[in-house]
């Protein structure tokens, strides 16, 4: 049923339909509306779950870790500093192969303190062993959660659904909220493999000495690589069940005969599509590649799509300080070294700390890379604010 609601509530309502047993979260802007709504649903008895108000994100992650190890379907959500505080648990959850679903309402990280959107926070845990799915809009954000539980429970990998803070979480849009029975049909009850239960005593969270550790990490890495097919398959099943395409590994827009392809993640895709339409009217052939599954990074799929594209422009909301664009690096790595083609890959870091990414900013970037490739540029930087010596 199509509902006009805030992105956060789209997520909270869909999460509730996934029937999680245990929800634990610590409030942090801009994630708060999600947890508030879930707390309300539990409080009003509309959701039969344990809602645990904890004293930190660290404990929130730990509570869901414990609950998941005890066989519960679990959910938590956070952002920014909260995710950074969770960091240790985040790694641990993946290593323990616990199918936890977490929403990251992407936000900048301190310092300076900033509550607005970028994607630096989820980037800090890209190597943790989680599946990371990025939503373009509120519909996709909601849909990805239904898929996330299914993917997690099939692969025994935790799934992080990233949605841009404020831009999506606090934006009102019409969202098609599925019926409970549709969700139930799509998402079977959680069948855990190993749980803490006195009837079948298991040791969970053992330590591994050098004889075993590397194999455990290798297996985890392979599991993430192999999860690509599950992500694709679940996205396909979702399309079949709910009649719309959501998620998957990546999405393209007007890419077939494009001379220039923009690559990005998250909500900025919408603005970029507008620009592409404008440029098309102006006779320019520009396409879009949206990465939905950032981890596992669908390298082969990216290569398949971009094999013949010689001019690529990466727009990303994060930065590896002292190194450069992060998504840009991933894209560059997607092409085999043996390929002798003269491919130009440019990278623009944009929108950090909630800086608006306007169509004109994007048009500037396109026009810039049409002339020559750009190794790295901060889009929309105001040089007036920067002392000469700092430039």
């Amino acid at each position, binding site marked *: 049923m199509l509902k006009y609601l805030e992105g956060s509530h789209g997520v909270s309502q869909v999460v509730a339909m996934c029937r999680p047993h245990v929800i634990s979260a610590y409030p942090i802007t801009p994630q708060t509306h999600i947890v508030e709504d879930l707390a309300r649903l539990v409080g009003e008895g509309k959701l039969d779950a344990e809602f645990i108000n904890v004293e930190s994100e660290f404990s929130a992650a730990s509570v869901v870790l414990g609950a998941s190890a005890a066989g519960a379907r679990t959910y938590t959500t956070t952002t920014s500093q909260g995710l950074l505080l969770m960091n240790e648990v985040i790694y641990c959850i993946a290593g323990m192969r*616990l199918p936890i679903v977490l929403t990251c309402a992407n936000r900048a990280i301190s310092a300076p303190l900033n509550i607005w959107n970028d994607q630096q926070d989820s980037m800090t845990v890209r190597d943790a062993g989680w599946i990371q799915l990025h939503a373009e809009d509120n519909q996709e954000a909601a849909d990805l959660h239904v898929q996330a539980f299914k993917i997690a429970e099939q692969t*025994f990998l935790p799934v992080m659904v990233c949605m841009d803070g404020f831009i999506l979480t606090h934006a009102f849009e019409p969202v098609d909220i599925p019926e409970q029975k549709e969700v139930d049909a799509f998402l079977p009850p959680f069948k855990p493999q*190993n749980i803490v239960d006195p009837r079948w*005593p*298991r040791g*969970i969270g*053992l330590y591994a000495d050098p004889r*075993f550790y590397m194999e*455990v990490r290798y*297996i985890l890495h392979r599991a993430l690589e192999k999860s690509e097919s599950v992500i694709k398959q679940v996205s396909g099943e979702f399309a079949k069940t709910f009649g719309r395409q959501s998620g998957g590994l990546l999405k393209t827009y007007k890419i077939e005969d494009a001379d220039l392809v923009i690559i990005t993640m998250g909500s900025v895709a919408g603005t970029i599509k507008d620009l592409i339409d404008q440029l098309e009217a102006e006779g320019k052939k520009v396409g879009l590649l949206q990465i939905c599954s950032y981890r596992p990074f669908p390298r082969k799929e990216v290569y398949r799509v971009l094999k013949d594209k010689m001019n690529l422009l990466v727009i990303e909301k994060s930065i590896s300080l002292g190194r450069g664009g992060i998504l840009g690096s991933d894209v560059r790595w997607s092409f085999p070294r043996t390929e002798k083609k003269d491919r130009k890959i440019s990278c623009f870091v944009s929108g950090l700390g909630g800086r608006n990414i306007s169509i004109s900013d994007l048009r500037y970037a396109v026009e810039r890379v049409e002339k020559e490739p750009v190794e790295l540029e901060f889009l929309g930087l105001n040089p007036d604010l920067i002392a000469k010596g700092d430039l």
Partner: protein
Amino acid sequence: MNKLPLGLVVDLRTVVPYKTGSWRTMQPLNIMQTPPCSHSCPINNDIRGFLRILADRQDYDAAWHVLTRTNPLPATCGRVCPHPCEGGCNRRDFDYPLAINSAERAVGDYGLEKHLEHKKLIPKRKEKVAVVGSGPAGLSCAFHLAKRGFQVKIFEAQGEPGGMMRYGIPSYRLPKEVMNREIEAILRLGIDLECHAKVGVNIPMDQLTQFYDAVFMGPGAQLGLPIGVPGEEARGVYTGVDFLKMVNRGKTVDVGKDVVVVGGGNTAMDSARVAKRLGANVCVVYRRTRVEMPAITAEIDEAMEERIMFRYHTNPVKIIADEGRVVGLLCVQMELKEPDASGRARPVPIPGSEAVIPADTVIMATGQAVDYDGLEVQKIDNKWISTNALQMTSIDKVFAGGDAVLGLETVSAAIGQGLRAAEAIEDYVEGQVESRLSPPPVIYSKDLNTYYYLKAHRFQRDALPVHIRLKGFSEIYPAFERGEIAKEAERCFSCGLCFNCANCYMYCPDNAVKKAKSGTTYEFDLDFCKGCGLCAKECPCHYIQMTLEK
């Protein structure tokens, strides 16, 4: 190698434990040690063993069988033994020593009450042994030999068996009934007894050595020695041995109003207390002090309770008679000087301190000797039979024990000698030359971890009031409550032997102490024991000890 499971999760029911035993440099061992009670006991009775049985299950039957493994006269010893075991008891450093003597009597009495029978270890063997004398030494030797299947015959000079137990010990200390029944039980092992058979007089010694594979001599010290002062031939003057013999045979002895007993040993105490019961005022004359008196402490205490007067530092000089009958004893006061060879202070007369103690009867109980009439054996000091370490005399195949060897000793000491002589005879007959295993080391208080023991009062036996005691010869201590004795047994530290406290089992951080299949003791699982020594440290009774890993 097993494939790594998802998330490295392990089914805990299938774990093969990692063995940590190789970490060990020290190893715990269960080592049974000798408790000081057994060590102090002349018979080496398994005191810990029978007390444990009483404490754990109040099984008097089993306790009796444990006790009679070594001592065939528990009811007797439970009455007359000065219980050096209690002197050794480690509990004395904690609160009070265990009332072992009372427990022994209770067990012995139970055996009599239930007519328990001794069991033979070996049904029958062809070798024959002659035992001379049916005192505690002879009975003990005969008993242990008979249990081992020997054909034993006892030759007793007197009309009835028992030796000094019968003729020396008054019945208020040892009722004849008790002794008789214990002797009967011993004889029921198939021992022949011939009374009025005085070896060396009626039966030549050669005859015994000829017809028997071995001979045990336990003639005792039946001769009372005079003190060697003028006037000893007067009427009313007896040796202690003769006096007690007369009374114990049931002869009426008129002791008169005043009796003076000379001496400080057990015969002196018994004589004094018997004379008191015959209605006399009794005075014990002793040339040293109470501390030096060789008699059993309890006997001296009881004699004092019974209003017997003690004159210390007093030595007889002359017996004064009137018309051939004693009327008094002239004594001199003594003072103690530096110790003599025996370690006791040397008494020296004080000139001019002579005084007469009026006496209708004088009993001389200062010395006894072996009656060597017709016996030719090597002696020590021309007094006691000389034996080697295996209790063999100068004559081949003739062994000896008891007072005749030890000098004046206790019933238990005699029983102990009888036991060891029996072992020696068995070894001799079998041609066994290697000495028997010596017992393990003795446990002392410092070896124990007394934290785990609770302080508790000692069992107190109630004596009859003195005025009732003195009315006759009935036993001073009435029978004990068996439950109370079992409770007393619970106080036993069980020095040097596991008593199932489970400390090792509970404290081992590696669960390397397992219950033995018997369920009553514990074993070490050396696959896992790291040798930390916690079990040994917390073993209350020092049964567990750490040794170097082999």
